[in-house]
């Protein structure tokens, strides 16, 4: 599904990603762990196509296509989804309007019929219910005045609506209370199947108790320094990055 080879990238002339090799096969969930500032969010932004990151080397193929040649909206339409570590507030943009515009843009690009307001509302209500979110949330402006946890849930709601092939969850667990963590994990697990892969960026084992990964990668100073099975996360938690990576 996703294949990253020798990826290097700079921000403002400073190398951040220093040669990333990572493959996430279809249907698998991989976790990425690593110290603050190691380049996890940078990797997720580069994969989603944010401006300001200069790709200095390497390749990324997504579903067989050259991901780095695509515009951000093309990547989304092709089935890539990034749940932001820091979801962006959009004052003046209603959440329902935002969600429907996004969903219909993606559906149009995928050759599927667009949903009218009623059809959308019906779908959104079902997804809200599954995530234990109140309908109030889609009547407000996007993320404006949302608590940290509400913002993260809103990201998961977007993921559930857009039905990506690959979801990158950048610390979607941080800021969530214990119940919310379970709900979000259930939301991700509900999507698991042969057509869904995920790259789960986290600092904490407790998320991985709920979303058990097929593999765990350790990212340090812009490189994957170690990969292993789900138990690697436990090792990291017990021993710390320095020791495990050594």
């Amino acid at each position, binding site marked *: 599904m996703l294949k990253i080879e020798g990826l290097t990238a700079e921000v403002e002339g400073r190398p951040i990603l220093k040669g990333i090799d990572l493959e996430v096969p279809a249907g698998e969930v991989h976790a990425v762990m690593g110290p603050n500032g190691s380049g996890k969010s940078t990797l997720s932004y580069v994969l989603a196509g944010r401006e300001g990151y200069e790709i200095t080397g390497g390749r990324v193929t997504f579903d067989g296509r050259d991901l780095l040649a695509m515009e951000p909206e093309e990547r989304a339409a092709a089935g890539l989804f990034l749940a932001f570590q820091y979801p962006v507030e959009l004052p003046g943009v209603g959440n329902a309007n935002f969600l429907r515009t996004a969903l219909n*843009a993606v559906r149009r690009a995928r050759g599927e019929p667009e949903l009218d307001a009623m059809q959308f509302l019906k779908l959104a209500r079902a997804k809200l219910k599954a995530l234990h979110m109140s309908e109030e949330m889609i009547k407000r402006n996007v993320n404006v005045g949302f608590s940290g946890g509400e913002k993260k849930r809103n990201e998961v709601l977007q993921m559930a609506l857009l039905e990506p092939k690959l979801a990158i969850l950048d610390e979607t667990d941080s800021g969530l209370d214990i119940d919310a963590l379970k709900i979000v994990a259930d939301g991700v697990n509900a999507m698991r199947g042969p057509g869904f892969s995920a790259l789960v960026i986290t600092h904490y084992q407790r998320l991985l108790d709920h979303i058990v990964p097929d593999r765990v990668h350790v990212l340090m100073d812009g490189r994957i320094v170690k990969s292993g099975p789900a138990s690697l996360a436990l090792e990291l938690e017990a021993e710390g990055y320095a020791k495990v990576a050594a």
Partner: protein
Amino acid sequence: MNAMTTGAEAFLGRFEGLRAQLPGGRTDWVAALRADAAAQFRAQGLPGRRVEAWRYTDLSPVAALGFTEALTLAEERPALPAARAPWRAVFVDGRFAAGLSSLPPGLAARSLAADLDAARGLLGALAEPLPLVALNTMLFEDGLFLEVPAGAEGGTLELLSIASHTQEAQKGRPIAFHPRHLIRIGQGARLTLIETSLGPAAAAYLHNPVFEIAVAQGAQLTHVRLQQEGRAGFQLCTVLAAVEAGGTYDNFTLNAGGRLVRNEIHAALRGPRAACHMNGAQLVADGQHADTTTFLDHAAPDCASRQTYKTVLAGRSRGVFQGKILVRQAAQRTDGYQMNQALLLSEEAEIDAKPQLEIYADDVKCSHGATVGALDEAQLFYLRARGIPAATARAMLVEAFLSEAIEGVQDEAARAALDDAISGWWQREGA
């Protein structure tokens, strides 16, 4: 002689030639009013940039064009946009077009030229000594004369101004018209006025309307102005409004058309608990200049005023906002608020903003603020990362930027007209 003087002389010359033919030309009080205005205009001239109120807006393109007033109503029937309300007063090149209009019964809505005698004592009653008001008084050919009776539920009326191709324009001389609208809302009465100005895409013309608006005690006027003049047109509009105790005047102005436009509003809150909301959006594309200048005169206690203006600038364009709030000594417990914000979509665009507070009462709550910024990269990326194409994402953020100013337009027909005007602008100029 410089261009400004030549331009002013041209208008004065037209007045000398036309004075007998203009409405009321043989009526003493009208002739005297026009002569006084001409004397004032002769003394003031077209305001140059050394006049403080015109520092950011240069009228020399207007002065240079040598406009001429159309003497006859255009014969052709201009294409009219779809009706927004059951009633509509249509003006073509500043003249009332009875055949195109349908006036509401019971609101005393008629052509000013046709009933000029009834305007004695009203016409000019609210005039300020402004050069463009003098120009209008000197040369006005017609206007809407509306007297909503006390207690009337006036509903919604459309006022449509269309610049047409006149004979003069075909001879290559651009036309000017100076409609004078008298609008009086009686005690406790209410009215919504949706005003749209349109013109041909490529012809130069000058539309110089003056509104004299009197809102009586407890009355309410909602005035929605959709300025969509042709791209080579000029509109210099002056609104003079006076609001009595407990009355409300709401003005929303969209500046979306024209080559150079000015939306100047003078509102006086004259009785206790009067209110005024002035909001607006300026959408300024490459080659355009849009100016909003407001003057809010708090002259009585316990009045409230709210102003929110948003300017979006694309290409090489210029926007201006000047807003002055005067709180007189008598105006205790004034609650005044003013915000103007600009969104620059291009590096070649420029905004000049000048807010001004002048306060003589001691117990007042008055604030103002201003911001200038570009589209937020993080917001744009967030939308695109959700599959929304870049052009749509930009349109959504521009709409979001405008929303605060637009939310105040609650009349459904007015809101629909406004939304259409904005999305039309975006399709033409923005995407």
